[in-house]
């Protein structure tokens, strides 16, 4: 049982029979590939800029040559004894690594805890229902769509009045709470695919709800967990809004640290900001590359979250 990504590869359709106008068919195909590759280049352009700029020593970052490849090796300084392209990277690493470590401590537990709560909710809302379960579901779902600005003012006041810390722990609680709706939605959709007969059989055997969940449903849940964990990890990692309102530069996650590095950057060390952007994106990119298929599944089931 897998979550359908909906866009799994199908065998390519048979080529259209030649109808005496082969040149038009080939022309159309060529045009399509040219377009597809052109878009590919456009989409990758910002990555090219990030990489080449991050490898240039500050003296070489000049608007006139900004699209060019670096003119020297990244370990060679532009001036005798000056900074090199690699210095951009070590500068960015120094600025971001503590925040990157903190963000792992935020994103991993946030992903696991909300996924688990979401699994329990999804289970009772789809397979072990109670009267008005649909109302409860809509009540939960709405939390996914609200602009977080709409709760931010009282949330900030609440944080102040309770004296909550500006570090990762407060953000962790917030991400768990606001991750509940999406995780519930994903698991509810996923569990709808599990046959009802399994629940009935378990009930006949005298198993209660928790037992059924633990021994029958949980073992089938791995694909669902992969999706919610990827989803929650990525959104906690990439979050800026909560971080900005509830945290601060010294104790906050990587998005804040990167924003600070980038906004502080003068033209002279644009390179380190770009190196930092690449560093800060690596974890989510690795998730995307390694678990890409499930990532897409997550996008589908989560159809509706920013």
């Amino acid at each position, binding site marked *: 049982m897998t979550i359908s*990504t*909906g*866009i*799994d*590869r199908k065998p*390519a*359709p048979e080529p259209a029979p030649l109808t005496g106008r082969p040149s038009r068919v080939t022309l159309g195909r060529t045009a399509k590939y040219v377009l*597809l590759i052109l878009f*590919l280049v456009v*989409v990758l352009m*910002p990555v090219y*800029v990030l990489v080449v*700029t991050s490898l240039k020593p500050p003296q070489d970052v000049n*608007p006139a040559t*900004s699209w060019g490849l670096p003119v020297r090796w990244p370990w060679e300084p532009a001036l005798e004894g000056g900074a090199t392209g690699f210095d951009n990277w070590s500068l960015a690493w120094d600025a971001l690594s503590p925040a990157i470590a903190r963000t792992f401590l935020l994103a991993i537990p946030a992903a696991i805890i909300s996924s688990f709560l979401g699994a*329990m*909710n999804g289970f*009772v809302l789809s397979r072990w229902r*109670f009267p008005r379960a*649909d109302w409860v579901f*809509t009540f*939960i*779902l*709405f939390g996914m769509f609200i*602009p977080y*600005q*709409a*709760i*931010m*003012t*009282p*949330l*900030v006041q*609440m944080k102040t009045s309770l004296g909550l810390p500006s570090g990762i722990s407060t953000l962790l609680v917030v991400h768990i*709470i606001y991750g*509940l*709706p999406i995780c519930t939605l994903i698991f509810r959709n996923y569990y709808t695919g599990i046959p009802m007969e399994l629940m009935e059989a378990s009930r006949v055997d005298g198993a*209660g*709800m*928790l037992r059924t969940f633990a021994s029958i449903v949980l073992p089938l849940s791995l694909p669902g967990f992969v999706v919610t964990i990827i989803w929650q990890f990525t959104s906690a*990692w*990439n*979050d*800026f*809004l909560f971080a*900005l*309102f509830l945290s601060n530069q010294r104790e906050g996650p990587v*998005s804040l640290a*990167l*924003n600070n590095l980038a906004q502080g950057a003068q033209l002279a060390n644009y390179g380190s900001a770009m190196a930092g*952007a*690449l560093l*800060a994106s690596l974890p*989510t990119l690795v998730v995307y590359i390694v678990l890409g298929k499930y990532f*897409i599944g997550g*996008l*589908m089931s989560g*159809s*509706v979250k*920013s």
Partner: protein
Amino acid sequence: MRKGVRNWGPPLLLVSPTIVILGIFVYGLIGANVSVSLSDRHSLSPAESFVGLDNYFSLFAEERFQHSLYNLGIFTLFFLVGTMLFGFLWAWMLDKGVSAEGVFRSVYLFPMAISFIASGVVWRWLLNSAEGDRASGLNRIFESLGLGFLQNPWWNDPTWGMAAIALPAIWQLAGYVMALFLSGFRGIPDELREAARMDGASEWKLYRHVVFPQLSPVALSALVIIGHMSLKVFDLIMAITKSIYQTEVPATYMWVALTSNDYAKAATIATVLLLFVAVLIIPYLIHTSRSEKAQR
């Protein structure tokens, strides 16, 4: 339907922590936000009185807020059109079997995995408004390709500037819309296409009369998703321009109000934003839950 507390008690108990938590942190805080927006709490000192809708009237009368709504409108227009157009085009091109489809799909989709803060670093530079000798980023490309007339001040343009902010947003999310459309294309049963081909429909007619009409639910969800993300745009603007007048939208204006301790104003802007999203989302939720029930 199973009857009795013994049957529905336990499942209700299992979701009750979530109900309580979201009751407080979503509905409770929305209520608190609305009540702050109806008060005169314009500084750190506590509210003194209930002022009704005064904050709303003065907000909508404010030129600055109107400007932020105008910006949001321009941004939303370009963002919606751009993501739908490219998302659809890419999905359509990939639908008919392309070699290395996986490569194109992955590349078109990857920007989605990156934060707006990280992509803002590079887009801030690509959209640099300097022209001529000082030009960098896109303006520099235009200059060196002999397309100098295309150079423009990007987000610094007072009328269409917000369209420039939509570029990175399109870059980031067109792939997502593509994935949605592609799943729509792949969800159309092959029999349907075969039947149309048997009836002698040309490829174009097949798309026009069979495939496209089947895609309208997907197009509707994509519109709602992109539309509600658009109304909330915040990170991207903070990353590219910081919060400045030229690119101000309600979400960034709310940040400015809150950081200057004008709680009532921040809460008022936030409530307006919530209403915008609700107008878009509530009909959509009703629509989906109805069609879900019909399928059962």
